[in-house]
């Protein structure tokens, strides 16, 4: 909503500087997004007060030596009038008209030395220099809109015709005082629909500054023939159309609106059209009631067809099956069943509260006008306008709520302006169909409640004063206050709303800041979050970067994970209004999102080690909401270490780097995870492991299948692989032991023995290690694999695994004999269970 400060000032005295005004409004919830200055300090072109004046045109004569120039003599408050040479085409009409003083025509005058915009160079400033024009020295200029930054017009100079209704001008007034202005762009959030008008904003400012609003006059002079039974209005659906007011204005003539009105419309963002359309828009902007002018003769001609001797009938109703509407812009619209129409017996005339119809619209030759100002149900308007994509100014207001009481005021205001400015005569009698009068809202307010909610200690008298400033009526009602809500406050329906009003007018900034005195609620903690955050830290400590990806993805991306097999046929949570095909479903697979990021980074990075903790979304046939399962996914590829000047090329990250990260993670979480060779379509066969906790599968790890890496477009060097893992997070977190007990360190020395065992290559090392631990008994502290050998020294199909065994007793120093015995037991046991042989 664009609010020219000069217009605002017509209804309330502006007691602040422009900036302070903006701040006062902003703090009260009318957020001023921008301030646009025109001619006054703050503007790009500030009008110099001693060089730019309002001048009155006294006489216009032909230039003696040039057909296309005239000499305009103007009065601008100096001792003598000034004569300027100008080629402005709109002055030629006054050549030879003699003394123009009585005709009250004004124009901005720029004197030599003043800065203005060069009209041919977009907002480039220049200085006016005196020079002879065809022999006549010229040291001043009457200017066009573009030259002083008032608009785009450069067809002629600005000519301001004073009229009976508008402001009175005084020649010689500094131009900044007449046309200088500032326009506030106010964000109309849903609860301040009442401020979608200049009067609405004035009302707020008046309340905030303790003033009374100078409302525009809603009186109308009705001197025409009685409306009588010439027009009959029927509202068929009062729930959608609670009020319909109409006035008949006869004998209007189309012409441009007066300058002051055009200027206000322009500043408020409306293009002036002609006086009738401009009045309609002006009233809507001024006091917030949209209104519509029908060509009455057109309606009468139609009535001649359906009721030659009867009245013009206006009926508001819902559409018939398949009914369409042709709007002002020539578009043909299909209608919703609840789109309310203004019709006559022959068909529809306009879409109620949103847009007029093409045929019934006023035209240049229209002389008699039926003016409509009605009230509409805001939800109905919202549905219709949204469905039909018609976001008109009327829609903007009606869809946010305009109280039916405004309809009559708007109708009268517009009719009176049409009488005064368009030369019309208003027929006597207002047609006011008001079948559904809304109840006045009355709220009983307890001052204790005000304190309880706001923390402000105000007594009844103070509360009363604050509410009265906003035009609420307040009367005592026992210990309570009976507050009657003014019509225009459709946002107020309870005592909590009144507290906001009290706080707003009192000033949010004056409310104290306190620390909560209320009792602290039970403190529960959030173990799941703490577990997640611990895992994030542990992985970051190991050199992995956390990422956060889009949870919206496409099946195509996720199916790249399955190129070696059939695509995922589980149903997705699908968006019905996605912004792009790439983000049209909620993901099934966190690793796919992570690998997509690996692919994007693979063009720039030599080492990519990343992880994410996030949700996947699985449709649950039994529930309307999907299962949201938290997963951990990690991916590693590229160089194992950072490049360094002192070392040769770093090796590629491999399977065991990934496994080391996982082992360290599980170790720090104190979760025991086993790795079981397995197969999975996304991973490379022979390099894939299932992760198990207590026999339950919690995830996968391995080298990404080369075809998957290719499908995902991950750029890899020769020998480089992508290693990835994914884990179900709740299962992992559930396995973290609640308690860990300290284990005392033995005071006796540990004895280390090495052992190398030859086994079949097919036996997993984990099996060998498990057997060693089992056979080693309580004295064996650890078995640490330090060498794996296959080769010419062994028979084919065999491998040698070498371990450091650490023996230690909690209560004595072990002898060689004792450790020797344990070692023997281990060897014997493995010979029996795994067919192992000691490598000598």
């Amino acid at each position: 909503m664009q609010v020219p400060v000069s217009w605002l000032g017509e209804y309330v005295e502006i007691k602040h500087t422009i900036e302070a005004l903006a701040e006062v409004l902003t703090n009260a919830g009318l957020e001023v997004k921008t301030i646009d200055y025109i001619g006054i300090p703050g503007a790009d072109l500030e009008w110099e007060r001693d060089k730019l004046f309002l001048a009155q045109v006294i006489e216009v004569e032909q230039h003696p030596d040039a057909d296309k120039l005239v000499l305009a003599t103007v009065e601008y408050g100096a001792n003598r009038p000034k004569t300027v040479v100008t080629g402005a085409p709109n002055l030629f009409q006054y050549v030879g008209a003699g003394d123009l003083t009585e005709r009250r025509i004004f124009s901005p005058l720029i004197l030599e030395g003043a800065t203005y915009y060069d009209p041919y160079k977009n907002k480039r400033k220049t200085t006016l220099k005196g020079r002879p024009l065809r022999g006549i020295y010229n040291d001043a200029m009457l200017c066009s809109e573009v030259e002083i930054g008032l608009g785009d017009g450069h067809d002629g100079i600005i000519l301001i015709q004073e009229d009976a209704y508008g402001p009175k001008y005084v020649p010689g007034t500094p131009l900044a005082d007449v046309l200088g202005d500032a326009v506030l762009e106010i964000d109309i959030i849903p609860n301040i629909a009442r401020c979608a008008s200049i009067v609405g904003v004035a009302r707020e400012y008046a309340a905030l500054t303790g003033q009374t609003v100078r409302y525009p006059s809603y009186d109308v002079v009705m001197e025409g023939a009685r409306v009588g039974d010439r027009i009959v209005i029927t509202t068929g659906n009062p729930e959608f159309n609670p009020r319909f007011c109409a006035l008949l204005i006869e004998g209007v003539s189309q012409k441009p609106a007066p300058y002051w009105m055009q200027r206000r419309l322009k500043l408020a963002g409306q293009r002036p059209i002609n006086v009738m359309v401009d009045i309609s828009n002006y009233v809507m902007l001024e006091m917030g009631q949209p209104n519509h002018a029908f060509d009455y003769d057109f309606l009468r001609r139609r009535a001649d067809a359906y009721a030659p001797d009867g009245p013009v009938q206006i009926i508001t109703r819902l559409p018939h099956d398949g009914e369409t509407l042709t709007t002002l812009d020539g578009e043909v619209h299909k209608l919703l069943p609840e789109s309310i129409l203004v019709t006559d017996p022959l068909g529809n005339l306009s879409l109620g509260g949103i847009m007029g119809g093409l045929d019934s619209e006023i035209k240049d030759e229209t002389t008699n006008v039926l003016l409509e100002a009605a009230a509409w149900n805001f939800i109905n308007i919202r549905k219709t306008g949204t469905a039909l994509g018609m976001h008109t100014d009327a829609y903007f207001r009606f869809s946010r709520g305009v109280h039916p009481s405004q309809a009559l005021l708007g109708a009268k205001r517009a009719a009176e302006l049409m009488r005064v400015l368009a030369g019309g005569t208003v027929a006597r009698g207002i047609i006011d169909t008001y079948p559904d009068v809304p109840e006045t809202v009355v709220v009983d307010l307890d001052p204790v409640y005000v304190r309880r909610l706001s923390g402000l200690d105000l007594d009844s008298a103070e509360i009363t004063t604050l509410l009265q400033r906003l035009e609420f009526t307040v009367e005592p009602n026992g210990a309570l206050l009976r507050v009657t809500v003014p019509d225009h406050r459709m946002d107020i329906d309870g005592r909590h709303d009144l507290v906001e009003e009290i706080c707003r007018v009192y000033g949010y900034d004056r409310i104290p800041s306190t620390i909560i005195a209320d009792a602290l609620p039970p403190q529960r903690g959030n173990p799941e979050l703490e577990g997640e955050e611990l895992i994030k830290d542990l992985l970051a400590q190991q050199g992995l970067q956390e990422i956060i990806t889009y949870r919206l993805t496409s099946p195509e991306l996720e199916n790249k994970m399955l190129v070696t097999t059939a695509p995922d046929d589980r149903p997705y949570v699908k968006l019905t209004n996605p912004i792009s095909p790439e983000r049209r479903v909620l993901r099934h697979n966190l690793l796919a999102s992570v690998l997509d990021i690996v692919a994007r980074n693979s063009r720039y990075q030599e080492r990519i080690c990343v992880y994410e903790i996030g949700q996947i979304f699985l449709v649950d046939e039994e529930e309307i909401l999907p299962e949201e399962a938290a997963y951990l996914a990690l991916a590693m590829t590229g160089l194992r270490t950072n490049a360094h000047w002192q070392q040769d090329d770093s090796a590629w990250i491999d399977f065991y780097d990934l496994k080391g990260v996982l082992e360290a993670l599980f170790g720090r979480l104190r979760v025991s995870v086993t790795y079981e060779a397995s197969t999975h379509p996304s991973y490379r066969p022979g390099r894939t492991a299932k992760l198990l906790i207590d026999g339950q599968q919690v995830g996968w790890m391995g080298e990404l299948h080369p075809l998957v890496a290719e499908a995902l477009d991950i750029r890899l060097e020769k020998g480089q692989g992508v290693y990835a893992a994914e884990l179900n997070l709740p299962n992992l977190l559930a396995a973290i032991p609640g308690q860990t007990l300290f284990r005392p360190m033995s005071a006796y020395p540990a004895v280390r023995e090495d052992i190398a065992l030859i086994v079949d290559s097919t036996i997993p090392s984990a099996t060998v290690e498990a057997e060693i631990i089992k056979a080693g008994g309580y004295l064996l502290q650890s078995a640490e694999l330090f060498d794996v050998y296959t080769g010419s020294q062994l028979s084919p199909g065999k491998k040698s695994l070498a371990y450091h065994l650490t023996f230690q007793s909690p209560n004595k120093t072990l002898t060689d004999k004792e450790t020797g015995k344990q070692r023997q037991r281990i060897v014997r046991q493995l010979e029996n269970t795994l067919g192992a042989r000691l490598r000598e």
Partner: protein
Amino acid sequence: MLEELEQLHEAALQQLAAANSGDDLDNWYKQTLGRKGSIQLLTRKVGSLAADDRPIFGRNVNIAKKALQEAYDARAQQVKMAELAAKISAEALDVTLPGRVQPQGRLHPITQTMRAIYRVFGDMGFQVYRSRDVETDEINFELLNFPPHHPAREMQDSFYTNTPDVILRTHTSGGQIRAMHEYHPEPIRVILPGMCYRNEQITTRSEIQFTQVEGLAVGHNITFADLKGTLTEFARRMFGEERDTRFRASYFPFTEPSAEMDVSCFLCDGDGCQVCKYTGWLEILGCGMVHPNVLRNGGYDPDTYTGFAFGLGPERIAMLKYGIDDIRLFWANDLRFLEQF
């Protein structure tokens, strides 16, 4: 014999003076004081002396041995120091050469921002409560006092799913309802972080997916003044002790009274800069007193309970704090971006 001892002593001292390395010293020791060294060999000749001379000779040998041992120790120390000095000087490093940096892992800047928020509110007794991304229209809108077709719904463009009345949450406020349902009639102090979604054009300023942290306090005695106090504390801890806050009226369907909190710009100290659009203030969060309908929908009687709620955007805070000018960088996850935090 004594003369011979004296000569040996003299000669040994001279040799010792010439010993310049550990090896020289070891050789000298072997040849002089060792078991087969010259002094030891001389003592073996003691038998050839008269009995009366033997004690004198013995004493002199001991004196000589002690003197040589002391000389050896002193020389050994000298040589050690000299050798160390030579080694130190030979092995000087260019301390400006780069070190061996282990690959570093980091948390995503949004996780870091979230944690800072958790910490501040955690200290004030607000615990983290999380709820789901895919929500019903009822939880996301209706119970939060957004009736169907209410103009406020236009402030948040939803993503709809193929299940009717199931949407991607447009804010974490729905978690307020879930928390109230779970905890009523106990008082509540929680913050609700999470991923939210809005059907908007992706630009440098807006994303279809973004995080939000909502806060909710419900109790018997919670006021708008408490809201101001709590959030002002938050602003100071988050952005610096010297920050000012400004509360201005605003609108959210689920709060009344509602406010926006601005924080004095920490980039220009309130003087006005490009980031604060020359206002001196940065918009940080929306807040207000929980609407009675919402309290009621959550199971709390508005006659005996009041509460406040607020919501803020971690991306916005991270953008302001780090001077990030493009919100799309967060989910693009370019490592060159992430490695800066």
